[in-house]
């Protein structure tokens, strides 16, 4: 459409029709045009402005400011902030507890994400069939996602309890024996990974389901005629066809997984363990480590900011690696 058309048909009662004399032009048409042009050119910016202003102040600015703070000895306890360059980063990278937190985070991430996405794929594949009670099943899949991470962590801490937990009772009844879930490194990682997987599997299954519904039906029909099993159909048709979605979920789960905080924090019984992630830091994650330094021990904001930036770097690297890896898997299949 052209810019002149609307001005030719001025609606009755438009606010500007009453003020033609204030502007040049015979019947106020140029005022109409100018108003229209301004409306078309300016309004979009007006509409995105609230978002970008708030987003810039409370979203982007803090991210950049973190880098600045990380170069300082910046503490709540003193008024002066001394510039220390990369000292915080040097200290961080030589701290064994940092590497421990990084190892724990990656271990929990892998344990929580890989099986989760695998099961989500299978569940989504089942949900594409013509099921009775389809809505019922889908609602059920999403149910865990509605609960908060705090609720999930609290409920599972009870289920994984050493003495009176339901899971240990089951393990004992089938002759495996009880496990002190909180005490061990591997066992605590497994317990935390279960919480993550429980909450997110159904959600990811729904996302896969959405993608699967866009896969042409006749691909499956000809595959079935060729006698391909459902497993073969899943690996040779479905997975390659929904690759962008898989990459998307892998990256999102990775970013989410690297930030795990509430689960380990609440999994520890109480006291200082909630910040160190167990008595021997066996499940302290990177965010817990950040929290420990930034908001618990002397409010070392500079050091905590350095941790945040290193985490950001790790997230970028891992996300990129994931992207390349998933693409490679697809092209070799």
């Amino acid at each position: 459409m052209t810019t002149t058309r609307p001005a030719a048909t001025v609606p009755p009662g438009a606010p500007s029709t009453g003020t033609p004399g204030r502007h040049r032009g015979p019947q106020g048409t140029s005022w109409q045009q100018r108003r229209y042009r301004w409306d078309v050119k300016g309004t979009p910016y007006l509409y995105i402005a609230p978002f970008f202003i708030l987003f810039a102040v409370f979203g982007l600015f803090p991210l950049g400011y973190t880098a600045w703070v990380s170069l300082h000895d910046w503490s709540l306890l003193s008024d002066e902030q001394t510039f220390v360059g990369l000292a915080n980063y040097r200290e961080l990278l030589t701290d064994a507890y940092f590497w421990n937190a990084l190892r724990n985070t990656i271990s929990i991430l892998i344990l929580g994400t890989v099986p989760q996405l695998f099961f989500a794929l299978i569940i989504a594949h089942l949900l594409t069939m013509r099921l009775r009670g389809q809505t019922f099943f889908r609602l059920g899949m999403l149910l865990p996602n509605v609960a908060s991470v705090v609720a999930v962590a609290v409920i599972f801490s009870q289920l994984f309890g050493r003495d009176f937990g339901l899971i240990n009772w089951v393990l004992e009844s089938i002759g495996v024996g009880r496990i002190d879930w909180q005490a061990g490194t591997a066992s605590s990682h497994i317990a935390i990974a279960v919480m993550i997987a429980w909450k997110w599997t159904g959600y990811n299954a729904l996302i896969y389901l959405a993608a699967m519904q866009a896969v042409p039906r006749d691909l499956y029909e000809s595959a079935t005629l060729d006698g391909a099993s459902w497993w073969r159909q899943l690996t040779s048709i479905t997975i390659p066809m929904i690759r962008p979605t898989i990459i998307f979920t892998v990256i999102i789960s990775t970013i989410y997984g690297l930030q795990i905080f509430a689960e380990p924090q609440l999994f520890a019984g109480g006291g200082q363990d909630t910040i160190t992630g167990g008595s021997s830091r066996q499940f302290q994650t990177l965010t817990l480590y950040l929290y420990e330094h930034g908001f618990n021990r002397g409010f070392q904001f500079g050091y905590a900011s350095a941790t945040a930036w290193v985490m950001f770097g790790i997230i970028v690297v891992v996300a990129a690696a994931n992207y390349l890896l998933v693409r490679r898997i697809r092209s070799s299949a």
Partner: protein
Amino acid sequence: MSTVATIRRYRPPRLAYLTLLAVLFFSGFPLYFSLVVASQDNSALGRMPPPLLPGANLVDNVRRVFETVPFGAALVNSLIVSATITASVVLFSTLAGFAFAKLKFRASNTLLLLVVATMMVPAQLGIVPLYLMMIRFGWTDSLQAVIVPALVNAFGVFFMTQYLREALPTELLEAGRIDGAASHRLFWHVVLPVARPAAAVLGMLTFLTAWNDYFWPLVVLSSPDNYTVQVALSNLRSGYVTDFSLVLTGTLLATVPLLVVFGLLGRHIIGGIMQGAVKG
């Protein structure tokens, strides 16, 4: 022949139902178990085997939760926080989504790309400066510290843009323009009515997220009267001896409103999640 074959092929095997029922069981069980524990008195939890059926102590436990921590205040705080954030996110996302989907302006693609790219950046990483900003503003330990940074989010803009691109007919906007309607009138009379279903879904998702948020409220709120529900819950949990029936009663109380919303509107939430997904 092909119709018969199609029907037969897509009739799910019994194993599919069994698997899905098992998944459903594992999805629902922990929530059911929190009800079991919440309705028992704490000593019943020291028995082996653990109780598997609800007891009679729910009312008593609920009363104890409200006595132990200011839980009523926490519920009100969470309601204020979540409702404000939801209203704001829906309004600003629809405005920005309309602009990105249907209005032409310079740099629109670049700006939208920026929005999508920042969806990948965890907000948590800016937590220290955000806290410093709150100190500077004098907002620490106040609800506005929780509300204001969450008033907009990139996901909402992306979601509304996607929806309006498909659902909002460009001809309708052009017709409105020819009738001389300014953009703001188009927004109120054309865009908003069309956006209503997506706005409802985005609203529900935002409300869920805001209600369940934990890390930032934990950092910025310090007095129990200002706690949101999730922080109040974690406060119930801390301490060397955990009264599990008390804690899980609190958990249940914090989750029930969401379960009710989900029960009533779950279909739409699912539709929204599937719509927001990147399609293959």
